[in-house]
């Protein structure tokens, strides 16, 4: 018991983290009071951390220091403009919060042109692939040529699936769209497969934390 207490004192964060982990995992059996209690603690910690982050990572470096250490007093206007966000809680003056929201939305929207050009134009140019491909020593690379052909067919058929501006009466377009739909299922299957990996990794991390970091039963 004394040893356990000493171990707890030397690494209290790990012990408390382990207890919190087990408390939240009790949900998989059924909803219970212990889970709800720790869930509320989690929300409180997250909310408190956001306040700390606001002051430590935003107001201190972007407002306090520029204004009171470099004399850039005009940042006060930006801070006051940002305070308008909090009018979202006011029933009567709620509309004032739309000003900074609109400003940020405008900021993001203005950059979309560049993002679109730099993201999709290279994608478009990469989509036009050669069907006759040679290896560095001059031999014909049939496999790559076939793969390029398949790539372009898949691209066009999947795009044809999304032609909603007109009714797809032509049999060619309907069949193309159907094929595109099938190929999309391959992509969604791949997404499902990788999603499984992601979720299992998260669970493994928790089990390693409990049995490795906390109970030290595993090295």
């Amino acid at each position: 018991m004394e040893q356990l207490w000493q171990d707890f004192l030397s690494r209290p964060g790990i012990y408390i983290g382990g207890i919190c982990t087990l408390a939240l995992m009790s949900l998989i059996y059924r909803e219970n009071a212990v889970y709800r209690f720790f869930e509320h603690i989690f929300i409180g910690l997250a909310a408190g951390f956001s306040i700390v982050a606001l002051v430590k990572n935003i107001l201190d470096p972007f407002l306090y220091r520029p204004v009171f250490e470099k004399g850039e007093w005009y940042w006060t206007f930006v801070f006051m403009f940002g305070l308008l966000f909090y009018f979202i809680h006011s029933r009567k003056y709620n509309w004032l919060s739309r000003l900074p929201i609109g400003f940020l939305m405008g900021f993001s929207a203005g950059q979309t042109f560049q993002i679109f050009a730099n993201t999709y134009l290279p994608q478009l140019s990469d989509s036009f692939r050669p069907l006759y491909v040679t290896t560095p020593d001059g031999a014909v690379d049939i496999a790559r040529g076939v793969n390029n052909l398949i790539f372009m067919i898949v691209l066009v058929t999947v795009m044809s699936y999304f032609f909603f501006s007109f009714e797809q009466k032509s049999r060619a377009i309907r069949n193309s769209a159907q094929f595109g739909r099938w190929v999309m299922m391959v992509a969604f299957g791949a997404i499902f497969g990788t999603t499984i990996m992601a979720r299992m990794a998260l669970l493994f991390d928790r089990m390693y934390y409990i049995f490795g970091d906390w109970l030290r039963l595993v090295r």
Partner: protein
Amino acid sequence: MQGSVWQKLQSIDRRILYALLLVVIIVPLFLPIRLPTVTMPSTQRLYDAIESIPPNGFIIISSTWSGGTRAENMPQTIAILRHAMQRRLRVAVFSFDVQGTQLSLDIAKRLAQEYGYEYGKDWVHWGFRPQAEVVMKSMVRDIPGTFDKDYDGKPTKDMPVMQGIRDIKDVHAIVEIAASGIYASWIGLVVGVNPDLKFGFCPTSVMVPETYPYLASGQIVGTMEGMRGAAEYESLLRKPGLASVGMGSISLAHVLIMLLIVIGNIGYFASRGRRS
């Protein structure tokens, strides 16, 4: 009686499923399954890209993840930082996530001690930056101006690690470790402006398929695909870590899920056959 067996196959109690999942995850922790990993081309390309950076080159690591995805993003962050420090590159770390800032700082401090990296001279942490797009747009033209303070509020202008770094052309590589689609902003605002820049992306496994169009066009030079990618990278670095340990458990979990899906479908088809 037989009909009810097929029905039962489709409706195993969820608590039994959860217990089975826990067993397949926990048992390999005590009885490790050691099977060789195969390094995927995308991981190899990222590794080769970092290897090709000249000594004393400058790499930016953006660590935009939080506690929820630490299982995958933490081993990725450790692997990339390790590689950069092994190669004695100048490293700048920052995050677009508040939690990620603290988490990446802790990891970087630990590894810096291991590799004898001196803060300010060999590496720097620029802290947290919200509103990713405006920061990216600004850093293309002026990195010291955009990141004029480090995580602790100290000026970065005169730090030896930042010497000679004016704009994005002075950066050899950027690696983003994230659980979101922020790579699109990097490609749109930074990579597109400087095609010589190597951009690596370390996503969670969920996002892996959607990165392939960008791998194909060369806009992303290489990826570390979730925990498996981190395990592959650890084997390339010859420094096994948490990701390598986890592959046994995750393998069995995958097999369990596939078996359960097959069992469910057997029950479905058999009971459908009996009804017809």
